[in-house]
C-alpha cells in the first residue's frame, strides 16, 4: 500500500514542477506573438502601427504584470480549464482547437501503439523461444533492417506506391474534402480509408523496439538458473517460456510502453505532417511556428500530464506484476 501512496506523491510533485516549467519556458523564448499575428495579417512589409499592436494585444488577452502575477493567473486558468484564445486560429479558443484534433491522434496513434506493443512483444518472445533458429534470425535480422530505414522515407514510399501509383488510398488528410466530421457511416469509412496509410507506416516501424527488447530480455531470463531448474523439473517447454521467460522478461517493457503511450503527442508530429493528418502533432507544429503561446502551452501541458500519468500507471502496474518492487520500495 505504502508503495502506491509513495508513487502517487511522487506523481503530484512532478506534475507541479512540470506545470511550472511549462509556464516559464515559452516566456523565455524570444519573439512577440502579437507582432507575429500582425505580420500575418498585413504581410511582412507593411510597417506596424503601435496602436494596432496594442489593440491586438488586448484582443488576444496577452498577460500583463510581472511574472509572479502571471504565474498566479496561469495556475488559476489551468485549474478552471481556461487556456485562452489561440493566437493563430483566432477567434477559436485553445480548448476548441485541441478537442477537435485530439480524437484523430488518439485513435490513429493510440491504436497503432497498442498494436505495435502487442505485435512486438509476441514476435520478440517467439524469437527468444526459438532462439538461434531460422524464425529467430528472420525476426531479429528483419527488424534490425527495417529499423535502419528512416520513418519519413517509408511513409513517402507508401504514399508513392499506394496513393499515387496504385491510387488505392488517399494521399493525405483525415477525411475527404467537402465532408465534415460526423458519426455517419459514410464519414467513418472515409476517415478509415484516410487512416490506413499512416497506420501502416506506424505499424511497420512501431514494433521494432519492442521486438528487440523483448527478445533480449527473454533470452536472458531463459538463461537464468530458475529457467534451467524449471527444465530440470520437467516442466513443459511452453510453460517454461511463458511463466519463467516471458512473464519476467516483459517487465521492463511495460514501463517502456506506458512512457511511449504518454509521449504519444511528440511522436505524432512527423507522421501527421507527412500525411497531412488533422491531429495534435500537426497542431503543435503550427503552434510552434506561429508563436501561438496559449496553444503551445496547453499542448505541452497535455503532453507532460500524459507522460506523468502514464508513468504513474506504469509504476502501479509494475507493482502488481513484480512483487520485488513493492518490497524494495517499502523497506
Amino acid at each position, binding site marked *: 500500500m*505504502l508503495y502506491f501512496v509513495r508513487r502517487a506523491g511522487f506523481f503530484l510533485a512532478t506534475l507541479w514542477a512540470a506545470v511550472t516549467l511549462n509556464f516559464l519556458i515559452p516566456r523565455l523564448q524570444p519573439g512577440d506573438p502579437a507582432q507575429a499575428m500582425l505580420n500575418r495579417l498585413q504581410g511582412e512589409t507593411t510597417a506596424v502601427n503601435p496602436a494596432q499592436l496594442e489593440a491586438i494585444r488586448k484582443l488576444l488577452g496577452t498577460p500583463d504584470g510581472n511574472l509572479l502575477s502571471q504565474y498566479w493567473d496561469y495556475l488559476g486558468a489551468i485549474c478552471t480549464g481556461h487556456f485562452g484564445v489561440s493566437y493563430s486560429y483566432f477567434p477559436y479558443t485553445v480548448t476548441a482547437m485541441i478537442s477537435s484534433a485530439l480524437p484523430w491522434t488518439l485513435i490513429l496513434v493510440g491504436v497503432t501503439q497498442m498494436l505495435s506493443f502487442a505485435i512486438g512483444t509476441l514476435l520478440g518472445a517467439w524469437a527468444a523461444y526459438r532462439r*538461434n533458429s531460422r524464425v529467430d534470425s528472420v525476426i531479429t535480422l528483419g527488424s534490425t533492417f527495417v529499423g535502419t530505414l528512416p520513418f519519413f522515407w517509408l511513409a513517402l514510399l507508401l504514399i508513392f506506391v499506394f496513393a499515387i501509383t496504385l491510387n488505392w488510398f488517399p494521399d493525405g488528410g483525415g477525411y475527404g474534402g467537402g465532408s465534415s466530421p460526423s458519426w455517419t457511416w459514410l464519414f467513418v469509412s472515409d476517415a478509415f480509408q484516410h487512416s490506413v496509410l499512416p497506420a501502416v507506416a506506424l505499424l511497420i516501424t512501431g514494433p521494432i523496439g519492442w521486438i528487440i527488447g523483448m527478445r533480449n530480455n527473454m533470452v536472458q531470463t531463459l*538463461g*537464468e*538458473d*530458475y529457467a*534451467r*531448474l*524449471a*527444465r*530440470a*523439473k*520437467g*516442466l*513443459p*517447454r511452453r*510453460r517454461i517460456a511463458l*511463466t*519463467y521467460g516471458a*512473464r*519476467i522478461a516483459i*517487465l521492463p517493457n511495460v514501463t517502456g510502453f506506458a512512457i511511449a503511450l504518454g509521449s504519444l503527442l511528440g511522436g505524432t508530429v512527423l507522421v501527421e505532417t507527412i500525411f497531412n493528418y488533422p491531429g495534435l502533432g500537426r497542431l503543435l507544429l503550427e503552434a510552434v511556428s506561429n508563436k501561438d503561446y496559449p496553444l503551445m502551452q496547453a499542448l505541452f501541458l497535455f503532453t507532460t500530464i500524459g507522460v506523468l500519468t502514464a508513468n504513474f500507471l506504469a509504476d502501479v502496474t509494475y507493482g502488481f*506484476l*513484480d*512483487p*520485488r518492487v513493492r*518490497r524494495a520500495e*517499502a*523497506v
Partner: protein
Amino acid sequence: MALLEVRDLSVTYSPRDSAAVRAVDRVSFEVHDGEFVGLLGESGCGKSTLGNAVLRLLDRPAAITGGTIRFDGQDVTTTPEDDLRSLRWVDLSTVFQSSMNSLNPVITVRRQFADTFEAHSDALGNDLDVDARATELLEMVSLDRSVLSRFPHELSGGMKQRVALALALALEPRFVLLDEPTTGLDVVVQRDILDRLRVLQARLGFAVLFISHDLGTVMELADRVMVMYAGEIVEDQPAAEMVTRHLHPYSAGLLGSYADPRDQVVEVEFIPGRPPDLSQPHAGCLFQPRCPVAVDACRTVHPELLPASLGQVRCLLVEQSGDARVVLEKAAELRRRDQVFAAGLSERADAEPVLVVDGVSKVYKTRRGLNTTLTQAVDDVSFALRPGQVTALVGQSGSGKTTIARILTGVERPTAGSVRFKDEPVDHLGRGALRKYRRHVQLVFQDPFSALNPTRTVAYALSRPLRNHLGLTGAEARARAAELLETVGLSPADQYLDKLPHQLSGGQRQRVVIARALAPEPEVVVADEPISMLDVSIRAEIIALLDQLVRDRGIAMLYITHDLLSARLLADEVMVLNQGVMVERGPTLDVIAEAKDPYTRKLLAAIPRPGARDIA
C-alpha cells in the same frame, strides 16, 4: 546394476569465436542406489559441466560429444527433451549452486511447488493436495508453512536454499544432484543445511552426487569421493581411504591445504601453477606441470584411470611402482621445501600503534514510513593496528565487520567514539583531508572478479592510485606498476602489464588487487575476506604473500574473515565480533584454542579436518 552409469562421457564447448574446449574428457563412473558420492574439484575443472551433462541440461555451445549416460539401465544420452520429462524430477532432481537465483522471482513458493506437481500429474494423479504436500516437504527442512505464500526475495539465502532442497525432494526422486548447494551461505547456515541433508538422505534413501570444491564437506558427507582435474577424474576412493591413503599428488595437494588451527604449529600447502588450457592438446599427464613428483615419462604418457588401493587413480607413478606410498611420501618431502606456509609461535615485535580505534559505535537509522528503526551495527569497539602486525576480525555475516572496515577507511562516520591515525583524528575528515588520508589506508576486496574494471589493463588499474596519490604519470607510473607486480609475485611484470582482467586467473587477479592496494604505499591495509573466493589450492599462496608484505613493508593489516584457519595462519591477534559487540580478543592461538564464544566454536566446528573422522 548401478542407478547411474556414465561411460566415457565427453563434453565439448565449441563457441563460435574461439577454439573448442573439451571440458569433460572420457569420464566414467557409477552411482548406486542410496549411495552418497562426492565430486571434488576446483573452479574450471569441469565438475559442473559434468553435472549438467548428467541432467541433460547442457546449453549451446556445450554439447555431449561422446560416451553414454544410463539411468536405471535406460540410455538417456540422446533421449529427446519431451521423453525426458517423465524422468525429470520424478527420478532425477537437483539443487543448484546459486540459492539466490534458482527460484522464479515473480511467483510464490506455493506456485513453484504447484507447477512441479502439475507437470507430473500423470505420475501423481490430479487429486494431490498441493498445500498439504508442500507443507510436509517444508517441514522436512524446518520451514514454516507461511513460507508458501512468500516470494523468493522475501526469504533469506539459507531459507531459499532450504526451499530448493524441499523442492528437489518433492517427488521422492531416486537420485539428487547437488551442485555446490551451500556455496555463498554463511558458515553456520551451511552446516545446518548439510546436516539436514545427511539426515534426509539416510531417511529417504536417495542417491546423491554432491559436487563441491569444499574438500572438508565432501570428505565428511560422502561415502565415496571422486577428484576431478582438468576434465578428467584423477582419483576415486572411499572417503575414509581418501583421507588417509589418497594416491594422486593432486589429491595430496588439496588435502594439504587444510590443517587444524588449534595446533601449536600449523602448516598448509599449496599447489603452484594453474590448470592447463583445455583447448590445446596435451600429450602427457595433465597435472604434470604442477606436479612436484613428476618424472620424464609424465610429460609424454597420458596415464589411465586404473584400480589402485580400494578405488582407482590416474597416475603413472602409482601405476609403475607397486607401492605408491613410498612415492608419495617422497613427494611430501619435496613439496615441503617451498610450497608450504607455516604459522608457528614466533611473535612479531611490538611497535607503536599506527591506527587506534577507541570506543567506536555506529547506529544506522532506517525509516519505514513514519517509524524510524535504529540498528546498532557496531557497539563500543576499541582496538589498535600496529605496523608489521595482522589483526584478524572474525564474525558472522551481519556482525558489523564490514561497518568497521567502512569506518576505518572513512566511508562511514562513527556515531560515537574516535579513530586516530597516528596523532590525527580521522573520523570526521572533510573531503580533501579524507582524500589525503586514504592514501595511507587501502582496501583489498573479497571478489577479485568484480574489483577490477574488466575493460582496463592491469597497468591502467595500477596507474590510477599512482597518479591520484603519488602524482606519477606516464613511463614513471608504468615502471612503478611493473615493480609492484614483481612485489606481488607476478613476474616477469612485462607479461602482465597489458593484460585485461579476464586473461588472468583468480589468484593472479587477487595479486593485482593487492598490488593496487600497495601502490600508494599505505601504512594500513584492510583486507576484506581476500581469499574466500579463491580456489583452495592457491589460498595459502596468497596468505603467504600477504604475510610477507606485512613483514617486509611494516604494514598494519586488518584481516576480515570468517575462516579461522587463515586467521590462524596470518594474524597475530584475533578479535571476534558478534552483533556489533567484541566478544573475544587476544593472541590468535589463545583465542582459537580456547574459544568461548558460541559463534567462534561453531566456526571452529565448520573447518574441515579431513583426518579427524579417523581419529574420532
